[in-house]
């Protein structure tokens, strides 16, 4: 694993794109920045006031053994690795479909994955992660934030955490080689935020009460209404009302 450290850049995912394009990244690589001025996946630029408090990085991996119809498993692997990492420190870690990590009702991390496909297989994946570590003041409009430090009343060394987390993600990506998709999906579902609990959701058409009963191997969220009716959604078609 190669590491690139930057004091500041607009988005680690953008740099990953550029370096991939010019052939500068040909092996698994981590790009770590102390803060991002336009962190992708975050709608604002307030990170600057809390320079160096959080883990914001991108990781480029090459899961070329993975068929492109299994692309959602990259997201599963990363979510499980993050959950596993956080569970060393706190309880109640949940994966909020499709790409956030929660502790209780509070958001601690966001994931943004950009995949590139070549033929029937994946070529590379750029995994962008923002994980709140030492921050205690939040000015961002992202709802319900929490940090590891707030949960444990401790301060952390970011570099140390980065190495441990990156290692965990890499392990989980390698695990995908076993093609044991059913087991991974089960583990993923067992950690889902609001799994099997009736809650309010908002789709394009309406607001309704339903419970999550499954996430399919293609990443669709399956909800069931009290009437028994089952509905399927993809990213962006459905919103949790918290």
């Amino acid at each position, binding site marked *: 694993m190669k590491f690139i450290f930057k004091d500041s850049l607009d988005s680690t995912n953008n740099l990953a794109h550029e370096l991939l394009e010019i052939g500068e990244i040909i092996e698994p690589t981590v790009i770590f920045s102390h803060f991002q001025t336009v962190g992708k996946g975050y709608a604002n630029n307030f990170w600057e006031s809390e320079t160096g408090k959080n883990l914001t990085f991108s990781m480029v991996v090459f899961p070329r053994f993975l068929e492109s119809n299994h692309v959602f498993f990259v997201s599963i692997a990363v979510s499980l690795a993050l959950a596993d990492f956080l569970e060393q420190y*706190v309880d109640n870690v949940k994966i909020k479909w499709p790409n956030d990590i929660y502790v209780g009702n509070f958001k601690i991390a966001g994931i943004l994955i950009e995949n590139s496909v070549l033929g029937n297989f994946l070529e590379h994946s750029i995994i962008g992660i923002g994980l709140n570590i030492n921050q205690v*003041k*939040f000015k961002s409009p*992202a709802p319900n934030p*929490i940090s590891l430090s707030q949960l444990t009343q401790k301060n952390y060394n970011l570099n140390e955490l980065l190495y441990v987390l990156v290692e965990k993600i890499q392990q989980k990506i390698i695990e995908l080689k076993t093609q044991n998709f059913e087991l991974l999906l089960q583990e993923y579902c067992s950690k889902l935020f609001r799994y099997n609990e009736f809650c309010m959701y908002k789709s394009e058409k309406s607001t309704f009460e339903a419970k999550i009963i499954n996430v399919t191997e293609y990443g669709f969220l399956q909800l069931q209404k009290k009437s028994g009716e089952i509905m399927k959604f993809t990213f962006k078609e459905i919103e949790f009302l918290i």
Partner: protein
Amino acid sequence: MTTFESTVKTVNYSDKTIFQFLTNFKNYENLLPADKISHFTATDTNLSFSVKPLGRFSLKIVAQEEFKKIKMQGEAKVNFDLYVDLIPFTEQITKLKVKIDADLNPFEKMIAAKPIQNLVDTIAEKAEIIKMA
């Protein structure tokens, strides 16, 4: 008088540990809704912070019954009382509830009900998941 109550939470600490944690104002920065508050200051006797869109809140502890009840008096645009109630469930598990009583006229209620409810819910929900010892 309008009452805002959290649901009853189950906290994996003894009543004593929680009581000690919640009577220390410095711990409240991690309990409040982080995206809604700013200008947090805590001393031994006073807690103050701004809540969007309600303005400045200032709190002090006015009564406490050891390991069972904490009562804080709050000053903001309106006066209110904040209570934390603890009931031991087992030696290491405690039930916790947060409550705010506020004097609100109908207009204030319209503006303040949601943020105040969010405040009591967040304190209770975070008390349930954060490490206190």
